[in-house]
């Protein structure tokens, strides 16, 4: 059952991802990207990573997609709509893509440690109060520094956005 849901979600996600890169209208591409990101969020739910799923929906489907669509509003998409989307680089892209995919299949998958007993692990996590609770406990004790550092990174992003937004004002002045 879980496998079937996964295959459906993964299929929709991959098809939507292909549409992101192949559709002519950039706004349609952005909407397909929403579908892809939503499917990834649903797959996180299947993996019992509830907090990650919430993050995916709130941050990626919510905020990042607003950012992407606003970025599309900054460019003149009429010109890009008539550009050729497939050009002479595509054959090299296919070659490199196949090599990278083979690399994953040959080198990474056999060496990665799969969880031997997922049911047992899920039960243990549930006993400890669930995935989010465990993650939160580590985040606010062991990874305290990383957590506080994240706020500094967000601060840098805010300051940079405000500064660049001023610089790019229509008059060309920094105001």
């Amino acid at each position, binding site marked *: 059952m879980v496998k079937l849901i996964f295959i459906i979600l993964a299929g929709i996600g991959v098809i939507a991802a292909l549409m992101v890169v192949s559709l002519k209208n950039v706004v349609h591409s952005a909407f397909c990207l929403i579908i892809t990101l939503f499917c990834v969020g649903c797959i996180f739910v299947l993996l019992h990573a509830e907090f990650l799923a919430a993050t995916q929906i709130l941050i990626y489907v919510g905020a990042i997609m607003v950012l992407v669509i606003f970025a599309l509003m900054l460019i003149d998409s009429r010109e890009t709509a008539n550009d050729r989307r497939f050009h002479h680089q595509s054959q090299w892209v296919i070659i490199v893509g196949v090599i990278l995919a083979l690399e994953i299949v040959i080198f990474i998958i056999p060496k990665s440690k799969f969880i031997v007993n997922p049911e047992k692990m899920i039960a243990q996590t549930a006993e400890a109060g669930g995935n989010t609770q465990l993650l939160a406990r580590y985040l*606010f004790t062991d990874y305290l520094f990383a957590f506080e550092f994240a706020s500094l990174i967000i601060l840098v992003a*805010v300051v940079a956005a*405000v500064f660049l937004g001023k610089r790019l004002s229509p008059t060309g002045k920094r105001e």
Partner: protein
Amino acid sequence: MLLSGLSSYIPVLVFMAISGAIGFLMLLIGRLWRPSHPYKEKLSPYECGIEPEGDAWERVIPRYYVYAMLFLAFDVEALFLFPWAIVFDKIGWFAFIEMVLFIIVLLIGLVYAWAKGALDWRY
């Protein structure tokens, strides 16, 4: 009713199905019910009642992007409040101080944006 595992997401699916059906049905009923007398003015995009001017595919001022960026930053901040709320009773005042520090650092960003006038809408 205590649901376990993936079946606890059935209410979420029901919510999604109902909200999707409402949107779809509203459009469908409207389409079946309304009279269809299209003419040029009626089909033109609605711009607060004034005559539409130019194309919708226009470049907008970058101020929108700053707003989206600020929304993203404070969205990330809000997200961290959820795990914090879960473990607050276990970790106690230590977690409280951590979160106060976190929010103060982000408040500096908000104050900066405010002071620089990024929150005022000017053309």
